[in-house]
């Protein structure tokens, strides 16, 4: 049937049977349709590791920072966040406290004081990114990652 589709037999005596080709194209189309996946819209947080600082200790100098500690509470299978000695209940509270602490450092003429995220190695990555996101909302760009802490006493 498909062979007759290429014009009139009288005009074109050599009929080409395109059925097989159509079948193959259908199969290819189905294959590529099934393999197509829509990529998630991705963004990036630009980060620069300190060149001269490395991953060594901070020495005996007085640490001036806004430190957010994030622990993994194994028995309750949940994340515990702490700013200074204060336990944080939700994101809004954390954002307000970081903003407040940052404003205090700005008043002391130290606007570059970093927010240090001190997270347990078991903490899910999303919790760390959430804190980075909160800092970005507060227009704080100087964020540092500490090398992990033990559980709270």
């Amino acid at each position, binding site marked *: 049937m498909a062979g007759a*589709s290429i014009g009139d037999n009288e005009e074109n005596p050599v009929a080409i049977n395109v059925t097989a*080709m159509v079948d193959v194209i259908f199969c*290819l189309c189905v294959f*590529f349709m099934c393999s197509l996946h829509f990529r998630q819209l991705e963004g990036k947080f630009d980060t620069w590791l*300190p060149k001269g600082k490395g991953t060594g200790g901070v020495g005996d100098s007085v640490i001036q920072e806004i430190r957010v500690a994030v622990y993994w509470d194994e028995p309750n*299978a949940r994340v515990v966040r702490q700013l200074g000695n204060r336990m944080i209940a939700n994101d809004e509270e954390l954002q307000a406290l970081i903003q407040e602490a940052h404003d205090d450092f700005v008043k002391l003429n130290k606007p570059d004081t970093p927010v240090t995220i001190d997270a347990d190695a078991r903490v899910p990555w*999303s919790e760390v*990114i959430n804190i980075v996101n909160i800092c*970005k909302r507060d227009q704080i760009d100087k964020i540092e990652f500490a090398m992990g802490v033990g559980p709270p006493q």
Partner: protein
Amino acid sequence: MSRRKPPTVKEDVTCNLIPMIDIMFLLLLFFMLSADMTQREFEDVVLPSADQVQEAPKDKTVGEETTTINIYHRPDSATFTCPLYAHGSLCRDPSHWLIGVRSAEYTPDTIRDQIRNEAEASLEAEVDPEAGKRMSARKVIIRADHMAPYGDVQKILQYCGEFGIYKIEVAAAAPTKA
């Protein structure tokens, strides 16, 4: 008087497949071009979402060398299943988490050599006065699953710092625009 028979027109009813073939070719072309046939740099990970994330530029900076490091949970297969991860719970079995660079699998212990090789492959020409050594011009993009243990990301940051890679990007899912 005999009735005349109406003249019969011999009609050749054929199905013209040419437009359909044209459309099929176009569809095929579309799916072929949109298919990702290149070496897979991006593993399937559920990225953590962040509303402050900067949208990734469409085109790479000319001459900039990048390495994408994926941290992802081992996918389910005929021989492997993880009920915890499958049900959205936190899996903390270290053997279930993999680090992928250009489709090759690494563990937090074996990735160190790979990062060193990547760093050494694109060292800057000049010694950095701040660091006192030649830094690497390579940019590392960390794409970690939202459930990935932070310890694995920490190790990658540590190795990058150790081998002079200072340009790091952290991937997150941008919220969908309404």
